[in-house]
């Protein structure tokens, strides 16, 4: 039988891209699943995962590797780990490994770039490392995770090209401001 060739969502896009000290790259993909505890099963799900379910805007590292990321009302993303068999019947698990594209925006000016697109206060005091938010990236729904070196940005796979284009445009504008003789007044976080 013919072997199918996988075509990733970012095929044809010029990444990683660095501009003005900020780098946009693709996150390595791995297993990703939507997890929604069934009614009354929250405890059992937590037990199966070995970690308490993260509250809104949070995520937790799982003991067996991977992360559980809050993903809106009653939903989580199980990232980087295959679903534990004990979750069966306790949570609605839905494969999303091909549903999302993960982007990383890193560098000192990452928040400044995202301020062009995301209507959130991204300053560390307001959105510290480890924080999770569902919001908008331009006109596209996104899931944002704050890290120490920048942000992870998840968008639905079909929006990958738009998201990359929008981020790249913002990166160019920020980089141009940095090149201004009087310095980047007005471009701060």
């Amino acid at each position: 039988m013919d072997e199918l060739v996988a075509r990733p969502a970012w095929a044809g896009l010029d990444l990683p891209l660095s501009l003005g000290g900020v780098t946009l790259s693709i996150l390595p993909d791995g297993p990703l699943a939507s997890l929604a505890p069934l009614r009354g099963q929250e405890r059992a799900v937590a037990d199966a995962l070995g970690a308490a379910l993260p509250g809104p805007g949070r995520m937790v590292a799982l003991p067996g590797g991977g992360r559980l990321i809050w993903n809106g009302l009653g939903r989580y993303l199980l990232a980087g780990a295959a679903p534990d068999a004990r979750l069966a019947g306790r949570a609605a698990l839905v494969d999303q490994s091909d549903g999302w594209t993960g982007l990383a925006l890193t560098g000192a000016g990452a928040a400044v770039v995202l301020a062009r697109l995301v209507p959130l206060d991204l300053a560390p005091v307001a959105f510290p490392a480890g924080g999770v938010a569902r919001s908008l990236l331009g006109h596209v729904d996104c899931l944002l995770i704050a890290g120490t070196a920048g942000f992870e940005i998840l968008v639905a796979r079909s929006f990958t090209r738009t998201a990359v284009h929008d981020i790249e445009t913002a990166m160019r504008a920020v980089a141009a401001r940095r090149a201004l003789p009087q310095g980047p007044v007005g471009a701060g976080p």
Partner: protein
Amino acid sequence: MSRLASGGLIDRARRIPFAFDGRRLTAHPGDTLASALMANGVRLIGRSFKYHRPRGLIAAGSEEPNALVTVGAGAEATPNTRATGIEPYPGLAVFSQNRWPSLGFDLMAINDRLAPLLGAGFYYKTFMWPARSWERVYEPLIRRAAGLGALSGARDPGHDEKAFAFADVLVIGAGPAGLMAALTAGRAGARVLLADEDFRMGGRLNVERLEIDGAPAVAWAAAAVAELAALPNVRLMPRTTVTGVYDGHTYGALERVGRHLADPPEGLPRDAFWRIVAPRAILAAGAIERPIAFPDNDRPGVMLAGAVRAYVNRWAASPGATAVFTNNDDGWRTATDLAAAGVPVTALIDARPGVAPPDGPWRTFTGAVVTGTRGIRALRAVTVRDAHGERSVAAECLAVSGGWNPTLHLSCHLGARPVWDAAIAAFTPAPDAAPGLSAVGAARGAFSTRAALAQGAAAAAEALAALGIAAADQAVPYAEDAATTITPLWRVARTTGRAWLDFQNDVTTKDVALAAQENFRSVEHMKRYTTLGMATDQGKTGGVAGLAVLAELTGRSVAETGVTTFRPPFTPVPIAALGAGGAGRGFAPHRDTPTQAPIAARRAPLVEAGLWRRPSYFPAHGETTWREACDREVAMVRGAVGVCDVSTLGKIDVQGEGAATFLDHVYANTMSTLPVGRVRYGLMLREDGFVMDDGTVARVGPTQFFITTTTAAAGQVMAHLDFAAQCLWPGLDVAFVSQTDHWAQIAVAGPKARDLLAPLVATPIDDAALAYMGCAAADIAGVPGRIYRISFSGERAYEVAVPARWGAGLFDLLVERARPLGGGPYGMEALNVLRIEKGLLTHAELHGRTTADDLGLGRMVASAKDCIGKTASRRPGLSGPERQQLVGLRARDASGRLAGGAHILEPGAKAAAANDQGYLTSVCWSPTLGRDIALAFLRDGRARTGETLRAVCRLRGLDTAVDVVAPPFLDPDGGRLRG
């Protein structure tokens, strides 16, 4: 008018060449275009809107009404730009506007002679005869005369950006009040954002000869700015105008980023529009001086006194021999400052009797007014009247101060009305005008520098307290603390001739008087009748004077008369900035299907389908029209096998003990009875009983379903399900999530569909294993996926789904393997023909005004259970013969053409609304039937099968005989589907 030998905050060592109407001039860094024009002796800068009167500078800030120019030429031409806000750069070219053929000689100035005919509202009273001449004669004339500058009509290649910013405290204006507020909040560690319109922060400290703590105020301001710039928690935004106040502590602001640069770095936006969120804001926007109305007070050279000081002190630009006309003590400063700078001052005219203005090398008049001016394109002399009579005083510039109006506009954007303060004869912001916003300094009517500093510090302290940030007390620097002494004077009485209130829109005291006489006495009526305050400066200088004059004329107080509504933006904002990112493709995001690449490789033209783009058809060698390709693809599906990407369908996984019940609620038909491994067509109604969407429901496990929506309605259905689950049936245990992006889904349709697929699918797919409307998990070409036996073409068909990354490969593989079977890919055109022939629906039919009964699907609304929309769908007006019902139409003759949107008439009926029988929704040439066919809604249609009617599209000149048939047009008992 010239540059003074010394002084000013300009860099004399560097020269900036620029051009005004082609004249080559020089500026220095630190100049504005306005100051440079003044320093170059240019007095005539524009023409007024209506009378085309010669006009020069009045002000030095964003309130300037007259000096509007067009910046640049060609596609980049930006009209109506204030000279006071332009920073010259080498090569800057600006042009005067609203004149023809030239600024000096403007033929439209004839309007000035006709002024008696062109009073307020004259156009409402004439131009009515003969009836149709408005559009043909009068309006074109008026339009040509109206308008200020011109757009190029071409797309400007420059680009802009938008961004979000957050702060604890937003300080609006960086004069003494704003700087002190920012220092106080910044030193305490609060996140501060300080925005000022000017490229140099400092406000009036930069333009006055003041001292703070014994040092020049300019130096204090510079030190304050330097300290703020060094604080990591403070962000300075010069060249940034806060333009609007919105709900939820949200502010709009326009930052001019690259407009002042000759050679901006690549990618630099011209402007940035900011949405700033700050729980506390301090309005330290200063005050705007107001003119006094007297005859011919619009002559170039008649300026505001504070602006004259600004030009002299900040830019060392001399206005020439100056007379000063004031009704308050502050005007005196202009005389003393100018004299100190060596500018001749010819007279100091104070309207107040018995005051004692300072002495100086000028003639002093008290209890005196200016009653007229002389000069044609520039002021030469003014007429002064006092107790001793009238006399002429030579002056190239008349510096006028009628007092100051706090710049309170922003405080009114959320609907508050300002309050009249008789002590300063001005409106001040109402306390609590906007949540979280407090006004300080001149913006609050406190006109001394000391008060500005003190209020700035106090407001910041209050903000910090509200935010819970501890702060040490700030010592307020020492500065002048003069009281405001003013006697209101809005217009000089006992004069003849026109006295301007609104310079840009050419509104004079006579116009206001006419409004009052004709009973347009409400201030809003007066505004609209005279257009006072409706020009691009929104009455910043003359607005209050205008309503004060109305108050006088109608015997009311200014407070009773009130103000008109202040609206955003504070100063005009380019559409390009507010709409940044919208040009061209940026308007809406694009979605790519997993098969985008192989489809593009096959040179399929793409059409928009919502946010997606889908292949229209796949051109084959030698084909010249889309119809050829489409007919071939239809025949291919009907005769062999076709492959089509359907990944754009909305796909939702629904799970939980309550899933089946939930689906029974949201679908009109019953889903709880669906066996595992089976698929059912589903119809969703809106609660008002009309059809919302259709799709398929597959039961993939006892408590797990997989449903599809149409491409168009995917988002709407998802929100609807959220609503149903959270708001209507929160007790149900159901979880659903979109899997639209996860799955690539490909339809394989045609009599040879199974032949194509069977070798690729690991499990058997013969009719016993996978009957029509069956579904199963399956390995497809080695990838775990799903297979559904459903059809949107009327042929034996399967939809195979694999995770998206495999979609492109699977599409290639299927297309390649279809070839030897006589098959290949097909696009939207063929898909459409296939479904019309089969009488299947899309949003052309499900257009939101059709019911299940209209569609012939009334029986799908299950009687045994409730569902969303069931009760409302039974309303009497929603069924029965008065409704238009879905039918098929076939052109009688093979040559008869049909068109979507045609209406249906009976043979011989007149084309009139009363005879309308219905309309065509979906039309195609059916290669299978060899004629045009259509789906249509026909009044009482189901009862009319067999009738011959006419499909009439008068827009396209079609009148075609059609036979009414019951859809589908093909294979009514579905033999082809089942195999």
